[in-house]
């Protein structure tokens, strides 16, 4: 058979097998923890890029993570819901809030939209800090229960007592996010998104409801941020307003830009590398924002389309003219 036909099918399969086997070979909790955080960051960066496919940059992601984390934790603790019900509900809550807040502001474009999303994050932080009897104020919520165990005798035994089980959950979350967002983007809805980004006037002249698609992109992107937030809460078992501040939004934004906006894989690469760098340089933890800013500057000046464009650049260099 044609090698070119097999290779594209084979490489995701191999990647998946490798990812599934990681806990078999690596059992240090620290490594698994880094991989889990990486999974959260990939989910966030990819869903942020999804919002950007219509040409709008959101800084609401931290707020949406917060909404997801708090609503899932509260649904489980106060209403006794199962984690598996609370997880999608957390996503839907974030999505509904994004829809309700996004609709009146959908006419705002560019920097004005970004400013409103920034205020949204700040407002949510303020809300969860001040609504003490529900959210626990500055202390936040502690001892959030683990996800309910899934036991299929002989097949599966996920109790979430170890990091290994959370690793698989993170893998499933990332897989679900990437497959859903890729399917939408590669369909005609993706074409509508992209047409709104490239020229709103032309898109409308051929019948694309640009305002509608902007709200749709924003709400769907926030859905995945809510899911990531719910995961975060149950993984760390404690949440506080401080974890979801403005800086988180900025960091996710940097993952996306450093990796590259133009391609689907860009934010994935960005999230992987920028999750690893602070871990490799733990001694300089407090300088993390500076390191990120420096990387961002280097990318903006020398690699406009992000790290994802590096292989293409190398190929161009090597190719004879």
């Amino acid at each position, binding site marked *: 058979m044609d090698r070119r036909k097999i290779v594209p099918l084979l490489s995701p399969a191999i990647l998946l097998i490798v990812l599934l086997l990681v806990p078999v070979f690596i059992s240090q909790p620290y490594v698994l923890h880094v991989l889990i955080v990486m999974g959260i960051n990939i989910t966030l960066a990819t869903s942020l890029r999804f919002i950007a496919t219509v040409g709008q940059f959101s800084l609401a992601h931290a707020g949406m993570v917060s909404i997801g984390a708090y609503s899932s934790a509260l649904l489980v603790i106060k209403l006794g819901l199962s984690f598996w019900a609370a997880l999608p509900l957390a996503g839907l809550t974030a999505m509904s809030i994004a829809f309700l807040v996004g609709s009146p502001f959908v006419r705002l474009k560019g920097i004005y939209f970004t400013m409103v999303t920034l205020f949204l994050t700040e407002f949510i932080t303020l809300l969860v800090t001040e609504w003490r009897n529900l959210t626990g104020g500055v202390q936040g919520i502690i001892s959030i229960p683990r996800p309910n165990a899934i036991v299929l005798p002989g097949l599966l035994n996920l109790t979430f007592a170890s990091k290994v089980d959370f690793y698989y959950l993170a893998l499933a979350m990332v897989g679900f996010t990437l497959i859903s967002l890729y399917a939408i983007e590669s*369909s005609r809805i993706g*074409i509508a998104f*992209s047409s709104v980004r490239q*020229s709103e006037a032309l898109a*409308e*002249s051929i019948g694309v409801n640009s305002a509608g698609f902007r709200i749709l992109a924003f709400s769907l992107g926030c859905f995945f941020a809510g899911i990531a937030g719910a995961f975060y809460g149950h993984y760390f078992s404690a949440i506080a307003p401080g974890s979801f501040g403005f800086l988180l939004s900025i960091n996710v934004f940097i993952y996306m830009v450093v990796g590259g906006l133009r391609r689907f894989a860009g934010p994935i690469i960005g999230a992987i590398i920028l999750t690893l760098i602070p871990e490799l340089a733990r001694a300089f933890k407090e300088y993390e924002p500076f390191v990120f800013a420096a990387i961002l500057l280097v990318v903006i000046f020398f690699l406009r389309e992000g790290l994802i464009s590096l292989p293409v650049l190398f190929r161009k260099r090597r190719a004879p003219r």
Partner: protein
Amino acid sequence: MATLQITGLTKYFGGLAAVHEIDFDVNRGELVGLIGPNGAGKTTMFSLITGSLRPTRGKVVFNGKDITGQKPHLIAKVGVVRTFQATTLFSQYTVLENVIAACHLESKISFWEAALHTPSSRRSEEAILSRASDIVHFVGLEACKDQPAGSLPHGYKRVLGIAVSMAAGPQLLLLDEPLSGMNVEEVDRTVALIKRIWERGTTILLIEHNMRAAMNLCQRIVVLQMGKKIAEGTPEMIKANREVIQAYLGSGKNAP
């Protein structure tokens, strides 16, 4: 029968009347020209008809349906599609992709069908591809169908703009200065293209500064000056109209 009926259409920008009490009709299957000196309000008329501007007063009726002040994408869906004076394109897309994007308007595939890539959505995708290829062939851009739209020469960009509007399936096509910035050869080719689109049954309303082309193409011409309609009639009538000549050349009273 009148496809497009415009009555008393008025638009004020602050205290300034950009368009004042304009009435005219476009009949089905007609090719009508809208001419006038710079600042006469021609493009404003297009924006009012297609909904990107809301009129201060007046009515726009398309096929018996009042579409005044509706959202642009809804007006496009009823079958009124405009092109732009500037080269407004999806510049990151190739020529073919530009047309494909516009073809999607006509398909009636739901969000879930599209996102789940169902067989019916895939089948309609194939239909769209073949329709888009036909249109690219029809306008004569086949040779550069895989080039990014942003890198095309100006004349080709204008033609691609027309192709995109065709793909949206218009009953009434509004062309905003389709010939501007073209060389003589391109003008001839584009005039022929507009004629062919019209012959396929699309009603066309055309803004044009190239007088010779407008006179040659249009069956009827509406002349605007300073936001008011000053004349309407066949090209011969317009050529002989004193007021029109004055509008374009001045009255001669102030000449030295």
